[in-house]
Structures are given as C-alpha cells and as structure tokens.
C-alpha cells in the first residue's frame, strides 16, 4: 500500500522518507514497537474466549486467567507507553537536527543568498515546514507498519479461508490505491501552495510590524489589513480546497470497503446457502474483513500527512541543496591597508550600479567617497568589503584578490560601519564586542573613541544592559555610535564608514574624528560622506556619480578641477561659516 504514496515526479526532491536515513535505529524501534502492542492486543480476545470456553467446560481457573490477562494488559501499557515516548523522541530529534542543519546551511551563505531566498521563506522552512516533518516521523512509521502488518495478515487469512471470495475483495484494493494516488498528487501541490501562502503571511505581518510607526503616522492600518486579508483569504481558499479533497477521500475509501463487506455478505452468503462454504469459515471471513478496513482508513489519514511532509521536505531540500558560499581563501596574513580596486563593474539587470571603477588606496591614508544619492557609493563599499560580488573586475588587498583571503582572518581586520544600525537583543557589551577577538582594552578604547562612556554609565546596568530588538529605546545617534564602537573594537587595520556622521551632531562628530586620529594612528580610513568640511585634509577624495568616478584628488585639487565638486562644496558653504568657529 505504502508504495503508492511515494511522489513520482522525477524533478522533485528525494522522497520525504529519506529524512529517516540517519535514524535507522529509531526506525527499527518504531517498527518493533508498532508491531508488538498490536500482537498483544490481538491476544486479549483469545484469553477471554479461552476463559469463557473453560468456564463452559467447568474448569475455569479465574486467578490464572486474571494473571494472564493482567500481564498482557500491563505489557500493552508498557509497550505503548514506550512507543509513544519513542515517537515523541524520534520526531523531536529529527526536527531539531533538521533545523540545525538548515541553520548551518544558512549560516554559511552570503548576504545575497538571504536576500534572494527572502527571510520570510527561510523562517517558514525552520518553523512550519519542520513541523510537518515532525508529524510525519511521529505518526507515519508506526501507522504504516502496524497497518501493513494487519493488512498483510488479514489478506493471508482471507486467502487461506476462501481464495475465491478473497480475490473478489482484493480486486477492490487497486480501486482504493487509485483513489489514494489521485488525491495524493493533488493534495501535494496544494500543500506546497499553502506553504507559500504562509511565507506570504509571514512577510505581510513582518512588514506591518517593522512599519508599525509609519502605519500609525499615516493611519494606514486599513491598507495593511487589506494586504493581510488578501493573503489570509488565499490561505482559506487553499485550506478549503485541501479539505474538499480530503473529505472526499475518507468517505470513498469507507464506501469501497463497505462494498467489499457487502460483496462478501451476498456472495459468501450464496456460497453458504448452496453449501460450498461452511458457516464457520464465513463468519471468520467476515471478521477478517472488519480487521482489514480500519488500517486502510488509517492509510488514508496518513497519506494526507505524507503529502504535507513531502511538500515541506521539497522546500527544505531546496534550501539544503544550495551550494555553500565558497570560502576557499587561504591567506591569513595581516593587512597593512593597501587596497586596489580594478575595473569594477556591477550590473543590476540592465543598469550599471558601478562602471569601470578603479582606485588605489595606500596604507594609513584617508580616503573619502562623495557623491549624490544613488551614485553607487554603498555598492562600492559592499564590493570592497566582500559583501557583494562584482560583475566584472576585482578588489586586491596587499596585491592579493579579496577572495583569496580566509574570512576568519580577513574580517577581524576590517571595521565596517553601515548606514543602518543593527542591534541584537543582547547586552551592550556583546553588541559592541561583537567578535571573539575583542579584548577588554580594545573594547574600552572603542567606547571611549565613540564618545559612549558617559552614555553607558548612565544606563542602569552599564555595559550589561540588554538592548531591545531593533534598539527601540536608543536614539539614532546613539545607535550609530554603537555601530562605530563595534567596528573599532576589532582594532581594525582598515575602517570603512558609510555616512557615519549623518546622525551625529557636529560637536560629537568633531570629537569622535579627533579620537579616531589619536587612538588609532596608522589606520587606513575609507569614509563615505556627504559633508566636505571634515574631509578637506584627506589624502584622496573620490567623486562618484551614477556609478562612475567623475573626479579624484585632494580637496584643493578638486576645487580647481571639478565643477561638480565645487557645486557640492557650495551647497554646504553656509554651514561652514558656523562650523569654522569651532
């Protein structure tokens, strides 16, 4: 019977049964425990009927009977308790291991993978999809085994009792098999669909939570509600389509089995009436048929669970199958700060995000990247930091391509301060010292440099204060300084700042920049910025526009050579009047 359950699509993931591969011992236990209590249960009526027979004969030994019966009952109790414990244990273990495997896989991927896969889908993978697999492990094996045992046993008994009648019954089995197969195939695609809707729901809910403040500012709850209702209605629709198939299957199977009973009753009755079958075999035959029907029904229920698990497993498999991001880099040398960017081009579809960008940075120098919104500044930084892969061109550190560096030694040497502040729900300490290489001194120095000392002292538990998710209780400037401290705590050779000063007030900014100079001498600095005043003394300023380098040089040189640079400078001049006074 179980053979018809397997998906036959050659492009699909391997059957969900392969999930059980590494757990052979569990499977064996589950099979044994699926069989034993059933056998004992079949034994109980025998004890009672033997007791009744003995009573009729007048030699009933009641205590002995009670003992036999009691022991069997106890045996069933113990075995079925163990069975359910093993079911729970096996399914939870498989679930946990599979989740770990998924997270291992995900954690070895690059940033691009997560964005392409979409976090909502990965979340469904780790939660709902795993739940279907758990259900599968805990219920399907035991049910399949015990059903198979009973079906095979009952079939043999049927054939032995009266083969002609048995053949009539067995012709109905292909009919049931066909029903299973037909419904299974349809239900499986529906389950895949329903998982995708869960992804969708996750996304809508997640966006509405992250956007909670905006939704309240715009009073757009109804818009979100509409989006949600769309996804939710779709979920209901698919749910009802699954239900329709399912509620069709059980009655059909029951009906077909009832027809078997009916056929046996009339045909068998006919045999008994014309004397070709004894009444004893007839009653036996009838009771075996009853025995046969129940496991077939169970198989019907199980096919539903198998279909669901298959759909989920295909989704999980797709994630697990992804190739790891290659970290083939072997170089572990320390960096000095020499960076070369060669003919970098990056395409987003048809559009150039970066076009033939080349630049050289000498160790210990300060470089600024300046340019209008959407000029490709952040993309350039991402490529230089190895977070994005360019379409053409390469980035060299100390003359070696970035990809030849081992991640574990490369990243601790560069400090990255992104535009957006990312805080984890853990202590301030762990948020700042977000690397295993950070020492107490380097942490202290980073905090001091980022002008966070007073702020941290004002917190109720200082460095051990827990930051809430998304850092909701912190101001934008505080978060940005925490990001800087996190990067500096690594004692980096190279520091990348992406628009770091945007949310910090001028006085603090001045102090911090001076602190960096004082505390981290010789560090190579690459700073994306909008403000010219702080970068006037930089060794190199690169003006990026629409993905191309428009001009480069020192502030003085650019003021002479680049009208665009002068335009930016002019747009800030009024500010300089005030800032010069410091």
């Amino acid at each position: 019977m179980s053979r018809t359950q397997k998906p036959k699509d050659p492009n699909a993931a391997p059957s969900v049964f392969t999930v059980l591969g590494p757990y052979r011992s569990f499977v064996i236990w589950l099979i044994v425990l699926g069989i034993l209590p059933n056998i004992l249960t079949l034994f109980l009526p025998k004890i009672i009927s033997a007791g009744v027979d003995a009573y009729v004969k007048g030699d009933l030994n009641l205590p002995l009977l009670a003992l036999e019966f009691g022991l069997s009952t106890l045996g069933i109790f113990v075995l079925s308790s163990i069975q359910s414990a093993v079911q729970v244990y096996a399914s939870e273990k498989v679930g946990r291991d599979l989740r770990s495997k998924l997270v291992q896989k995900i954690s070895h991927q690059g940033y691009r993978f997560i964005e392409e896969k979409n976090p909502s889908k990965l979340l469904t993978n780790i939660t709902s999809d795993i739940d279907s697999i758990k259900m599968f492990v805990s219920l399907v094996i035991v049910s399949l085994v015990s059903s198979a045992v009973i079906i095979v046993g009952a079939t043999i008994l049927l054939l032995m009792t009266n083969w002609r009648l048995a053949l009539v019954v067995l012709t109905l089995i292909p009919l049931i098999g066909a029903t299973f197969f037909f419904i299974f195939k349809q239900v499986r695609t529906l389950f895949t669909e329903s998982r995708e809707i869960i992804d969708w729901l996750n996304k809508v809910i997640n966006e509405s939570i992250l956007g909670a403040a905006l939704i309240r500012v715009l009073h757009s709850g109804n818009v979100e509600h509409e989006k949600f209702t769309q996804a939710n209605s779709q979920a209901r629709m698919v749910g009802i389509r699954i239900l329709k198939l399912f509620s069709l299957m059980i009655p059909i199977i029951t009906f077909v089995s009832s027809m078997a009973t009916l056929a046996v009753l009339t045909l068998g009755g006919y045999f008994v009436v014309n004397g070709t079958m004894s009444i004893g075999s007839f009653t036996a035959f009838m009771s075996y048929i009853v025995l046969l029907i129940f496991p077939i029904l169970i198989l019907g229920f199980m096919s539903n669970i198998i279909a669901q698990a298959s759909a989920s497993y295909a989704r999980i498999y797709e994630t697990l199958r992804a190739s790891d991001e290659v970290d083939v880099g072997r170089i572990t040398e320390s960096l000095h700060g020499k960076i070369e960017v060669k003919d970098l081009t990056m395409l987003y579809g048809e559009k150039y995000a970066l076009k033939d960008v080349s630049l050289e940075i000498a160790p210990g120098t300060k470089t600024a990247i300046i340019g209008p919104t959407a000029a490709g500044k952040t993309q350039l930084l991402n490529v230089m930091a190895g977070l994005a892969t360019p379409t053409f061109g390469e980035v060299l550190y100390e003359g070696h391509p970035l990809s030849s560096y081992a991640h574990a030694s490369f990243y601790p040497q560069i400090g990255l301060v992104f535009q957006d502040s990312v805080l984890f729900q853990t202590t301030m300490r762990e948020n700042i010292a977000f690397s295993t290489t950070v020492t107490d001194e380097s942490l202290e120095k980073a905090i001091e440099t980022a002008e966070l000392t007073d702020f941290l002292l004002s917190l109720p538990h200082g460095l051990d204060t827990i930051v809430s998710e998304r850092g909701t209780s912190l101001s934008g400037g505080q978060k940005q300084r925490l990001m800087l401290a996190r990067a500096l705590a690594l004692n980096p050779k190279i520091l990348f700042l992406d628009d770091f000063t945007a949310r910090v007030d001028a006085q603090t900014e001045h102090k911090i920049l001076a602190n960096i100079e004082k505390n981290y001498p010789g560090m190579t600095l690459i700073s994306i910025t909008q403000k010219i005043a702080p970068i006037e003394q930089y060794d190199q300023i690169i003006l990026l526009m629409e993905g191309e380098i428009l001009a480069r040089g020192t502030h003085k040189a650019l003021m002479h050579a680049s009208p665009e640079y002068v335009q930016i400078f002019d747009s800030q001049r009024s500010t300089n009047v005030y800032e010069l006074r410091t």
Partner: protein
Amino acid sequence: MNYELNAEQNKKKLSTLAGVRSLWPYLADERGILLFAALATIANSAINLSAPLLIAHVVDTYIVAKQFHGVLLYAGILLVLYIVGLFTSYAQTRLMGGMGQRVLFNLRTKIFSKLQELPVAFFNANKAGDLISRINNDTDQLNQFFSRTLVQFIGSIVIMIGSGIFLLSIHLKLGAAALAPALGLLIFTQLISPWVKRSNAVSLTATGGLSAEVSESLENFKVVVAFNRRDFFRKRFEVANDENYKTAMKAGIANNIFTPIYGFFANLAQLIVLAYGVYLISIGSFTLGLLVGFLSYIASFYNPLRQLASLWSSFQVALAGWDRVSAILQMDNNMVVLPYALEHARESKALLEFKDVSFRYTEDKEVLHHINLTLEKGKTYALVGPTGGGKTTTASLMARLYDPTDGAIFFEGRDIRTFDSVERTQKIGFILQEPILFSGTVRENILYGNDSYKDFSNEDLIKVLHDAELESLLVRFDGGLEAKVATSGDSLSLGQKQLIAFMRAVLRNPELLILDEATANIDTVTEQLLEDILKKLPKETTRVIIAHRLNTIENADEIFFVNNGEVSLAGSMEHAVDMLLHGKRES
C-alpha cells in the same frame, strides 16, 4: 499598560471551561453548521454501529437458515445505509473542516486587526518573530482542533453515552462495574490536564522564541557576515533550538500520556466484567450468553474513549494556543480618542502647544521633563541638540505616537487626544528617522496610505508630482514610478528610501510636517532641492525639522535646543550653534 506579551501578568491562563467559553463567540456564527455537522456525525455513528448488528442478524437468521432472498434483501438495506453513510461522512468532515478554516481565518484577521489598533509601544515591547508565530502557528492549533478533533469528539461522546446507557440497562451492577474505570479516568484526566496544557504552553512559547530568534538573525544577516560572526547566529539559534526541543519533548510526552493509560483502563474494565460476570453467573443472576454480549458492548464504550484520549490532548494544545492568542486580543489600546466637547476648545493662535509635558517610555527613567513649547501656523521650527537628548521623542509626541506621561498637548487649541486618527494623521505628517518601505513599486510606496491619487494613471500622477516640484526626485529611480522596491537588502540606498518617504509625506499635504533627520543620508545638492520643495509648501504649513546639518536649519524661524530631556528656545542661529558646540550637555 505593560505591552510585553511574555510578561507574567499578561500571560493568560484560562481553565478548560473558561477557555471554551471565551472561544464560543467565534463559533456563535457557526451554530447552524455545528448543528448539521453534529447531526451528520450522529447519523454516521449510528450507521457505523448498526451495520455490524444488521450483518450479525443476516448471518444468524438467513444464512444459517439458508434463505438467500433474505440475504439479498438485507444486502439492499445495507447498500442504502452505506450510500447514506457516504454522504454523512462527507458532510461531517466537510462541514467541520470548513468551519475550522473559517474560524482560523476570522481569528487571524481579528489578531491582525488588533495589532493595527495597538500603539507603537506594543511593538517596542514584543518581537516580530513571536508575533508571527502567534498569528500563524498558534491559530493553526485551534484550526486543527476544530477541523479534525471536534467532529470525532462529538461522535465519540455520542457513542459512549449510548453504549454506557445500554450497558447499565442490561445489568445495572455489572454495568456500573464496567464503567467504574471510566470514572477513574475522568479523575485522572481532571488532575493531569492542567499540567498537559502548561507543558504545551511552555512549548508554544519556546516555538515563538525560536521564530523570534531566527527572524532577528535573518534580518541582520549583513552584520553577521561582515563581522564573521556566523557562529554567533548558530550559537544563539542552537540555544533556542535546544530549548524548543526540550519543551516540545515534554509537551509531547504529556500529550501522549493519555493514550496508554486510557488503553490500560479499558482493558481493566474487561477484566472486571469477566471476573464479576463469572461471579454473577455462579450465583445465578446472569447468563453466559449475556456475558459474551456484554463484553463486546464494553468495547463500543471504551474504543471511543480511547480515541478521546488523543483528542483530549490536542484539545489541550489548542487551549494553550488560544491562551497565547487571547493574550494579544486582551490588549487594550491605552491611546484612546477622547470625546471632544466644544466648550473644551481654547482660543489659541498656536497650531501646537506642549503644556508641561513629561514623558517616559516604559518603566525607564523619564526622558522629557516639563516641556512647554508653542508652534505657530506657517512657521518653520528646528529642533537641534546632541544625540539622545530627546528630539525624536518630542517629535513622536507631536504626532501622537505616544501620549505624554504628564501634561498635555494641544493641536489647534484642542487636546490632541480628541482628534480621531483619520483627522490627526491627515493634519500631521511625520517623516520618521528610519524610512519605512513596503515591498512593491515606488508608486505604491509614494501613495501608501494616501487615497487621493489612488486611481490616477502614471501620467497624471507624474503631473501631480511635477506640480509639487517632486518630479525631479523621481529621476533617482530607474524605472520611475514602476521601479521595484524590496524592503530588505541594498537594492535601494538609504538616501533613496528617504527620498520616497519625503515624497510620500509631502504629497499628503499636511498642516504640520515633521522631518526627523529625514534627509540625513541625502547628498547636500539634492538636499537643497528638498529645501526648495519645503519652502514652496502652502504658506500655512508648519514645519518642524530635526537635523544635524546646520544648513538644513538655517532657514528656521525659530530654533529649539533639545538636550537632556529639556527644550529651550535658542533665539538666533548663532546662539543655537553656540549651545550646540559649546553648551553643557549630557547624552
């Protein structure tokens, strides 16, 4: 109000009965369906019970007597019964399943609506992943219960009651003896159910925690990669995974405890009947034939009871899920709209006034102290000051994202709390520090929450943007209005996101427009463009600008210096700069 769902005082722990009662409103609309489904279930159970009896009758009377026409007659009757059964069994699953789906739909909608009603403070207190888990996973536990379990529940109970009465009517004492173990089971179930439910509650909480952990790490994956802290992600996940594993094991064991014990008691009943029956026969008050019959009837009482065992545990899971769901539904918005009476209106020239406003986020220390300020119509105000001084908080109070802990805020002379949200959000525009976009297109994002231009074609909309001087900003997006927007990732720069947020707010044409570092990541040339746009807003529009770049605020009519939770008027720009650069500060 404490909005943290996982806080002890907000955890709902309803008893079984109270749980069922609080669920009832969701079923009330389904009363008709429930009745039909119950009838179908009863009919189906009756067919399932009577078919074997009829077959036994055929065998006893016709087959033994070799009367084939009787066999055929009853075969016909059985065929009719089976056909009826085909329909009743379909109806029972279909009706109850449909109801389960509808209840699921309604519950999810209800929770989502509730989320939309709750203030920002609620979202500060709870993790996105946990909320998602409550909406998707916990409601599904209820669906499972309604669609699968409830039918069988009713069916089992009907059959049990029938069989129980039958047993008692055959022989009162023997019947009572046969049912005695069931009484034991009842007590056992009563005693153990709270523990089972508690285990499931703990397990569902752990599931929510796992979901929260995963979604936090995935959202922040860039930092995980850049700091080479993949181990951090894995380690934190393993903690949550292990927690989930342990609690799920406990819950699983608790859920599975019923089945073997119910089986045990059922078998015990057989033994009792056998022993007691034999005794009764020996004293002559019972016959052997009756005993054999009695033993088979016990099965029809205890078999459904065995089924009830697993049904009961899934009921407990559903109740635990319901507790987590109703914890959200029980939340009240503490930012209600107050009734407005004309006599409360104050003659006021000011657009917005803070009267002795103090504010604290949760139980933390106070972040704003006794603030008084007045904004007049048509003027431009700047809020400057060091980071963490209270600028964003002040702005959030102006837009009523929070209510002051003490004091009051007046808008157009009325307590700001008397404006309903539609009116308030129309009058007050707020560009948040973190630009928020939704996946879709630039057009959808610009028009988000704005119905005025909903039906405009792209050409017409561009005309509108042109008139508002916003068209030049659209050039920064490849594909213009139809450019794709993804919420996560770097497909749009922060500056571009800020441009979208800016266009969105300006198009709404508010009376008060608050910009909270709204242009911080935009280059200074484009920023001048934005300033021009702001200047060309209608004369009566009031602007509040928070910025660190001094050139963005130099055109302000009035500058407020916000520091250490206090707001003071800076007077001239020179004075403001002086305070900013040299003033005493704490942050």
